[in-house]
C-alpha cells in the first residue's frame, strides 16, 4: 500500500467517524442514532485495521477485529435492546435545537484543531494530522451528553465520547497492545451494561427516561 493511498484511506475512515458523530446530532430518531453509532464503530475498526496493515503489526489487526465486534455490533446492539425493552419513545429530545447543536459541534471541531496544534506539530505523519478529529469526536460526545435529555441518548453519548478517545489513542500511539484495548473495551462494556440496567430501572420506577425529572428529590 503506497503512502498516498494510505493517507487517503485513513483520512476517509477518520472522516467517516467524524461525519457519523455529526449525523448522530442531526438525526431525530433514536434507532437512527444507534445505527449511526454502529457505523462509527465500524469506521473506527477500519482506522485500526489501516494502521495495523501500514505498520505491519498483527496485534493491531487483532485489536481492529475486537473493535469491530464490540463497538460495531455488541454495544449498539445492547443500546438497541434497551430501546426495545423500555419502550422509550422514538424521538430524540434535546435542550437545544438541531441547527444550534450542529453549529456548536462545528465550533467544537475548530476548538479541537486549535488546542491540538502543538500536538500535530510534534510529528509530521498523516495519523498525527488527523488526531484533532479524534478530539473533536470526543468533544461532540460531551456536547451530546449535556444536551440530550433521554437516558438512552446519554448512553449513546458516552459511547461516542469513548469512540473519540479510542480514535485519539489509535492515531496518537499508532499501536495499542491488545491488553490495553481489552481493558478499555471491557470497561466500556461494563459501563454500558450497568447504564442499561439503570435505564431500565428508571423506566420501571418513573415510567419515562427524561432525566430532567430526576433533579428534584421527592418521597
Amino acid at each position: 500500500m503506497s503512502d498516498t493511498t494510505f493517507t487517503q484511506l485513513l483520512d476517509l475512515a477518520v472522516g467517516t467517524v467524524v461525519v457519523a458523530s455529526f449525523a448522530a446530532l442531526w438525526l431525530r430518531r433514536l434507532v437512527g442514532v444507534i445505527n449511526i453509532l454502529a457505523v462509527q464503530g465500524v469506521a473506527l475498526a477500519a482506522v485500526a485495521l489501516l494502521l495495523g496493515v501500514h505498520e505491519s503489526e498483527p496485534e493491531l489487526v487483532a485489536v481492529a477485529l475486537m473493535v469491530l465486534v464490540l463497538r460495531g455490533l455488541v454495544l449498539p446492539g445492547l443500546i438497541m435492546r434497551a430501546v426495545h425493552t423500555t419502550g422509550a419513545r422514538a424521538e430524540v429530545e434535546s435542550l437545544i435545537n438541531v441547527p444550534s447543536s450542529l453549529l456548536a459541534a462545528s465550533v467544537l471541531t475548530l476548538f479541537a484543531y486549535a488546542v491540538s496544534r502543538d500536538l500535530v506539530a510534534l510529528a509530521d505523519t498523516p495519523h498525527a494530522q488527523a488526531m484533532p478529529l479524534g478530539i473533536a469526536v470526543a468533544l461532540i460526545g460531551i456536547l451530546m451528553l449535556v444536551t440530550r435529555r433521554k437516558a438512552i441518548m446519554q448512553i449513546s453519548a458516552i459511547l461516542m465520547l469513548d469512540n473519540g478517545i479510542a480514535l485519539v489513542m489509535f492515531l496518537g500511539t499508532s499501536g495499542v497492545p491488545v491488553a490495553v484495548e481489552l481493558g478499555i473495551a471491557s470497561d466500556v462494556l461494563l459501563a454500558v451494561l450497568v447504564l442499561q440496567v439503570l435505564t431500565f430501572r428508571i423506566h420501571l420506577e418513573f415510567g419515562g427516561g427524561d432525566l430532567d425529572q430526576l433533579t428534584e428529590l421527592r418521597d
Partner: protein
Amino acid sequence: MNASRVAVTVVQVAFMIAISPFVVGVMRKVRARLEGRVGAPISQPWRDLRKLSRKQRMVSEHTSWVFSISPIVLVASTVTIAAVVPTLSTVAALAQVGDLFTVAYLLLLGTVFLALAGLDTATAFGGMGASRAMTVAAISEPTILVSIFALSVTAGSSNLGAIVTTTLDHPSSALSPESLLAFAALVVVVVAEAGRIPVDNPASHLELTMIHEAMVLDVSGPDLALVELSAHMRMVVLFGLLANLFIPWGVATSAAPGALAIALVAVLVKILGLGVVIAVVEVFLAKLRIFRVPELLAASFVLAFLAVTASFFLGEPA
C-alpha cells in the same frame, strides 16, 4: 480574448439554453413513469415556453418598475452564469471571471430580484413565497461558497476553471474526504436552489407549500416564459457545475472543435445522469415541512464547513 474563445462561450450558452427544458422534460418523464403515469413528452417544457411567449402580458396596475425588470434581470444573470461556469470548456472567453464568488453572487442576484417581484405585487402568496425563498437562500448561498471554497484550497485558486483543471490533473483528489464532504454539501444545496423535493415541490400548486411557484403567481405571458426558462437553466447549470467539479472528465481544456464535441456529449450524459438520479430519488422522498428545511440546510452547511477545515488541516496541497 480571441475569436475561438468567444465562439466556445457562445456554443456553451446556446447549448445550455437548448438542453435545459429537455432535461426538465426528461426528469418529469422519469418521475411520471416511476409513479405509473405515462407523463408528458420530454419536449413539453419547450412547448410550454413557446405557448407562454405568445400569450398576452398582463401586469397588475399596482406594481412598480421592479416587477417589470425582474424577469429580465433573472434571465440575464442566469445566462451570464451559463457563460462563466466551465460546463463545456475551461477556456471560454469569460473564464477569468468564472470565479466562485461571481457565480454565487450572480445566483443570489437572480433570487433576490425574483423575491422582489413577488413582494412588489403585494399579494399574500407573493410575499410568503419571497420570504421562504430568502430563508432558503440565506443558508444555501454561504454553503455554496464554503463547499466550493474547500475545493479551491486544493487548487490554490477560486477560479472554477482552475479547480476543474486541478481535479483533471490529480484524479485521486476527487476521492479525498474533503471533496466527498463538499460534494455531499453541494448536492443538498443544488437540490434546494433548484427547488426540488425535499425543499420545494416543483409540481405543487398547493399554496401553503409553494416557494418558487408562490413568487411567480402574478407573472404572466412572455415574462413567465423568461422566469421558467431561467429556473430550468439555473437547475441545469448547477447540475453541470456539480458534475464538472467532482467528475471533470470530458471537459474540453482547449478550444479545438474535436474536444468540444466530446465535451458536448460528456456534459449531456453527466447532466442527464444527475437529473435522472435526482428524479428517481425524489419519487421516494416526501417534501420536508418548511420549518425542517433550515435543519437540512444547516446540516449541509456543517458538511461544507468540515470540508474546508479538512482541506486546510488534513490535505497537503496537490
